[in-house]
């Protein structure tokens, strides 16, 4: 080793490293281009292809797609029946998200704050296990629970609460002939299936809240409830919002759950599925998909402003 600058090890890798060092932009390009190529071309490209279809229309007589630019298909979205579908899905998604937060928060808070060591691992397992269980089988399990000859009816009978069950089923709009053929049923299944997606980011966000903040709040005179409202919740909010991105978006586009547990009215996902399948009406299907894209676009923008992206 003589001199301050040694030039040992001339190998291919060393040489390549020198080149990359002198041209940092080259390294950046090499790292970014392949994934961008995939997501940009495969994903965004197909999205754009789909959206392109929404500007075409379908010929009512032949059933074939007319490849001319028109906004008529979007106009169709505003027909009452279609608007119904959109609003129904929106309301369901909102209800599911809000309820998920309410159920998930105690679990996440408990796991983040009071669980330690073995218990923490246990909680994690308990939350992840349902996540890994087959989505389809879970839905059918609920069908079993909610069906007329299913568990809840049987339980109600045993506890002499059948009249309560009937009263619930008699509630207009959300009730139905049986729990598995009602909006309540659909709602319950959605909440159940997406719950882990809400728990995990919320727990992660809560764990990032330093414990001494709660002590500081108490020191400054806040009651536990005040500390929760003014210190913990705002700091956990990004995690909650991140979780809600999942619950909202998953509910909005799901076509399998309402099909198995629900009334015969359509949700967004089902509308899109039927339109592009048997009906062959790709333009209208595409126009329908624009709705959740726009909604999620706004949602994501708001979520980003509130810092949810750091909680993913």
């Amino acid at each position, binding site marked *: 080793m003589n001199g301050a600058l040694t030039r040992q090890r001339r190998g291919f890798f060393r040489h*390549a490293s020198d080149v*990359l060092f002198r041209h940092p932009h080259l390294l*950046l390009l090499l*790292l*970014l281009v*392949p*994934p*961008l190529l*995939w997501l940009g071309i*495969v*994903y*965004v*490209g*197909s999205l754009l*292809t789909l959206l392109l279809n929404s500007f075409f229309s379908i010929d009512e007589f032949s059933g074939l797609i007319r490849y001319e630019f028109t906004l008529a298909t979007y106009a169709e979205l505003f027909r009452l029946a279609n608007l119904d579908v959109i609003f129904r899905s929106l309301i369901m998604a909102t209800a599911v998200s809000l309820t998920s937060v309410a159920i998930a928060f*105690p*679990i996440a808070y*408990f796991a983040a*704050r*009071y669980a330690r060591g073995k218990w923490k691992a246990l909680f*994690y*397992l308990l939350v992840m*296990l*349902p*996540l*890994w*269980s*087959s*989505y*389809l*089988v*879970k839905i*059918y*399990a609920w*069908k*079993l*629970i909610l069906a007329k*000859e*299913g568990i809840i009816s*049987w339980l109600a009978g045993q506890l002499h609460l059948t009249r309560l069950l009937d009263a619930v089923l008699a509630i207009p709009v959300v009730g139905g002939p049986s729990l598995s053929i009602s909006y309540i049923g659909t709602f319950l299944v959605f909440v*159940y299936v997406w*719950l882990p997606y809400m728990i995990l980011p919320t727990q992660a966000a809560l*764990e*990032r809240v330093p*414990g001494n*903040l709660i002590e500081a709040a108490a020191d400054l005179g806040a009651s*536990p409830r005040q500390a929760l409202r003014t210190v913990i919740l705002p700091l956990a909010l990004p995690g909650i919002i991140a979780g809600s*991105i999942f619950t909202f978006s998953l509910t*909005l*586009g*799901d076509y*399998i759950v309402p099909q198995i547990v629900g009334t015969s009215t359509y949700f967004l*996902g089902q509308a*899109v599925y039927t339109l592009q399948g048997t009906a062959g009406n790709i333009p209208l299907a595409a126009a329908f*998909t624009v709705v*959740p*894209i726009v909604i*999620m676009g706004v949602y*994501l923008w708001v979520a980003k402003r509130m810092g949810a*992206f750091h909680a993913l």
Partner: protein
Amino acid sequence: MRSESGQRAPLPLTLAAVCGVLFLHVPLLIIFVYAFTTEEKSYQFPPPGLTLKWFAVVWERQDIWNAIALSIKVAAIATLVALVLGTCAAAAVARAKFFGRDYISLLFILPIALPGIITGIALRSAFHVFDLNFSMWTIVLGHATFCIVVVYNNTLARFRRTSASMIEASMDLGADGFQTFRYVVMPQIASALLAGGMLAFALSFDEVIVTTFTAGAGSESATLPIWMLNELIRPRQRPVTNVVAIFVIAVTFLPILGAYYLTREGEHTGGTGK
């Protein structure tokens, strides 16, 4: 955040948490019980009788094994692609400042923020346009797209937690870029890669919505979820699906625990003087 050791949770909180967890698991118990029922056509409660015969039936059925094999293959390839591409993107976003960096974050959220049905239909119409035949590779294409996102998020979070000075220290000590990656970066992100990879594998293994659009018809392109969907629509031998579900849960039990311990490690900041 931790409360001081010894501090017990308030009772309402514990009750709410326990109820929540029960809510999550009672249906799983139901699935478990119904793997043993003798009634094969409807979901009668209480089950008329218990039997072990469905386990033998599952063992014999070739279509189940084929479906499992296909699911594993698809999940493995999709995860591999996701690991490479996701890590590259995460490295770029974590360490460099460049024009459009925020938009990249947005791009990498889209596949999971937008409902799966949109991804499915978009890909299907793209296949149509390019005249691609449905095959295992079309399924992989769909799965890899959201797997990349999962790996990206996991790896990005880990990159953000490692100090940049370690890479500088390695170079300062004489290691070039490649050596630094091999000896310093990789060990740091290895567990994040494993956790992200496992999550991606899990998501791919259980995915049904996008798959219904990107798989062909016919049983040779049936992944396990597709197989299940077909089984559940035709009401015969219902308990068989429960048995398969239990099998999947049992097999994935240990990897989940493993992934948890791997991503959980506390201080990994190589020696801040504080």
